[in-house]
């Protein structure tokens, strides 16, 4: 760590790798607009958390920006129609996900008019310059962000409104805007910054107001001088126009280009020297981090009232005729996007969504662009070659040297391979950010990241199974107890009955004796036997009740969801 770096407010992070950026491929000033497709396929889950719930029916006609799926729960985000048309289906379709499994989507047949739904802005743009920002309350802004379905567009996909609310409660003092864009090939943030610096800065001011942060740092890698200049000019222009005390409120800092400088944890470390605690959030150390694209989306929601219905996607790679950045309506099929950009079909080797370090290979190109789609990388043979088969680990520790989290991938791999999951956890696997530096630097070509994903999944599964087993044990023990109780109740009833019987016999005897003695009270016997019969019946019914109680009990103690399931089942039965 050199002193000069310290003075500039830059701290180093360990590990990391130098990569060939390949950004010049797609880096141009213009952002092209993709044509509207004939059919939009909008997944209901484009975020972390609960999937949205469809609020439209097949046959409904929708307009651009109209709500088609509402958020379900705190950590969830709504989904909007990205053009006008008619809902033709709500069904499971392939979505961009490494599994290649389908998920629920709303299919819209577009009408080509691209009519906007009635969208009201909270504030006009020229108001901001006249300090209209102060007229807005934080709740208003958060509400609008939630309504617009904005999620973390840097790749985390965490609903932004939820994040803002939590950050507001936690009194964050620093807002960090991530403009590093450290992955090779991707330039969508770069293009956005060059084209719409004003939107970004106004969006940042909105976020800053909500979280109440005193300072705001924009971290940008030093390989994007034009974007940096554009933002700097805008900030300075804004500061000249605004009040004295607002000056110095946004700082833009160039960070050295080294992958993964744009990782949230790494950027925080580089800009502030602070570390996010393990298993914790940036908010725990008073920091909230948002992506630059998210800031632009916040601007659009507040100043124009437009929900998140499109995003900028980098189309790049050796097999693309004209690599470029394109603004694409969410739900557009990737095949159509590629067709528009122009591609050499016969030269395609791999199709990756996201960057080459953290993206995933698409299972099919008939999947829609989603809020997460920042880049579609279509490589030609030799560009991103499939590595030769993995050799055994030679423990050279290059992975450990390149790990930005200071983990020991060689040890985690060793134990993950042997399925010693506890040991893997001892080596802090859950601090792994899956940046891919270790796999990249491995001379044995071991797919370390996949091993770690696998191990994490296994650990989660084990935990879930353990929880399930505990629940099953509890329920089993409860059942045993209940059966025990029922048995006891039965025995008790039987005992009572026996006692009664014995009593009755004794009485009978007595009566018989009395009858013998008296002989005149002969009508006594039927009456008493009648009373006994009634007592017997009562005891029987009691026993039965106890038994039934036992049976009924299993429908008690149900959770709401289970009760619902039962009710639904009963209803179905009534219908049939």
């Amino acid at each position, binding site marked *: 760590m050199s002193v000069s770096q310290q003075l500039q407010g830059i701290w180093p992070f360990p590990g990391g790798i130098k990569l060939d950026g390949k950004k010049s491929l797609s880096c141009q000033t213009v952002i092209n607009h993709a044509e509207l497709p004939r059919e939009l396929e909008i997944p209901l889950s484009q975020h972390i958390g609960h999937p949205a719930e469809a609020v439209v029916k097949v046959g409904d006609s929708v307009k651009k920006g109209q709500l088609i799926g509402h958020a379900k729960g705190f950590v969830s985000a709504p989904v909007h129609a990205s053009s006008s048309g008619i809902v033709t289906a709500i069904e499971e379709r392939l979505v961009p996900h490494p599994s290649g499994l389908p998920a629920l989507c709303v299919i819209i047949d577009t009408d080509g008019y691209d009519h906007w739904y009635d969208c009201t802005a909270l504030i006009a743009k020229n108001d901001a310059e006249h300090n209209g920002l102060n007229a807005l309350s934080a709740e208003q802004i958060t509400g609008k962000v939630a309504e617009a379905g904005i999620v973390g567009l840097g790749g985390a996909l965490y609903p932004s409104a939820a994040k803002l609310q939590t950050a507001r409660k936690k009194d964050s003092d620093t807002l960090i805007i991530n403009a590093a864009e450290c992955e090779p090939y991707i330039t969508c943030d770069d293009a956005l910054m060059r084209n719409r610096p004003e939107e970004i800065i106004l969006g940042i001011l909105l976020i800053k107001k909500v979280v109440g942060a005193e300072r705001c740092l924009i971290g940008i890698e030093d390989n994007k001088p034009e974007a940096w200049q554009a933002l700097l000019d805008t900030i300075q222009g804004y500061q000249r126009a605004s009040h004295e005390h607002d000056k110095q409120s946004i700082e833009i800092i160039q960070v050295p280009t080294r992958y993964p400088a744009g990782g949230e944890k790494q950027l925080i470390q580089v800009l502030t020297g602070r570390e996010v605690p393990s298993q914790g959030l940036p908010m725990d150390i008073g920091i909230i981090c948002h992506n630059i694209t998210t800031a632009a989306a916040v601007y659009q929601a507040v100043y124009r009232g437009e929900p998140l219905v499109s995003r900028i996607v980098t189309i790049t790679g050796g097999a693309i005729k004209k690599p470029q950045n394109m603004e694409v309506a969410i739900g557009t099929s990737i095949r159509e996007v590629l067709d528009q950009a122009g591609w050499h079909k016969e030269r395609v080797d791999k199709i990756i969504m996201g960057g080459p370090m953290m993206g995933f290979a698409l299972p099919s190109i008939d999947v829609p662009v989603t809020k997460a789609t920042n880049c579609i990388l279509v490589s030609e043979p030799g560009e991103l070659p499939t590595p030769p088969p993995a050799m*055994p680990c030679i423990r050279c520790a290059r992975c450990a040297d390149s790990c930005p989290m200071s983990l020991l991938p060689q040890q985690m791999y*060793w*134990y993950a*391979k*042997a399925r010693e999951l506890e040991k893997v956890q001892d080596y802090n696997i859950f601090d792994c950010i899956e940046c891919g530096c270790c796999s990249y630097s491995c001379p044995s070509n071991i797919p370390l990241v996949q091993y770690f994903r696998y191990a994490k999944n296994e650990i989660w599964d084990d935990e879930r199974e353990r929880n399930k087993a505990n629940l099953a044990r509890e329920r089993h023990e409860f059942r045993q107890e209940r059966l025990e109780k029922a048995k006891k109740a039965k025995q008790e009833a039987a005992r009572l009955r026996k006692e009664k019987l014995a009593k009755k016999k004794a009485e009978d005897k007595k009566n018989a004796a009395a009858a013998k003695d008296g002989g005149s009270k002969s009508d006594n016997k039927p009456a008493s036997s009648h009373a006994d019969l009634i007592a017997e019946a009562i005891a029987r019914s009691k026993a039965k009740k106890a038994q039934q109680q036992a049976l009924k009990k299993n429908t008690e103690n149900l959770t709401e969801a289970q009760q619902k399931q039962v009710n639904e089942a009963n209803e179905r039965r009534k219908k049939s």
Partner: protein
Amino acid sequence: MSEYFLLLISTIFVNNFVLVKFLGLCPFMGSSRKLEVAAGMALATTFVLTLSSASSYLANQYILIPLDIEYLRTITFILVIAAVVNFTEMVVHKTSPMLYQVLGMFLPLITTNCAVLGVALLNVQTGYNFFESIIFGFGAAVGFSMVMVLFASIRERLASADVPEIFQGAPIALITAGLMSIAFLGFTGLDKGLH
């Protein structure tokens, strides 16, 4: 003072009980599959070795020699050691259930650990005094513990190695012990050299 230090160095490294004298191989092989178990075993052995070294010296010096019954030495030492081990087991069981659980069935194994009897008999043979006996016992125990823990850590690594099937388990462990023993031969002559 330096005499004692040399004795300690010599018993730990140069004449390591396991790798050079090949004593106490049973627990060395038996309870070194897991590091925690090995560490527990090593601790318990250290305790027992030092204690039995001292108590057997006392038994020899104040019971066997005065009564002129040295021919009963072996059986007496076994008695003393067995009692010390049992006592240790009870104490560990009560004070550290965790350790007891880790050691499991291996604690009683210390009774039959030939290193323990070996130390007691070697003490008498070489004519060490009381302090020397204790240091000898302690040094032997430290040497044992050290190689035991190292061996266990290597075996843990080997557990997931691609060892040919017929060499998995005990065979490769014995080969490893052999290579460790060869490495320890590097200390040969160190005691004389330092002298």
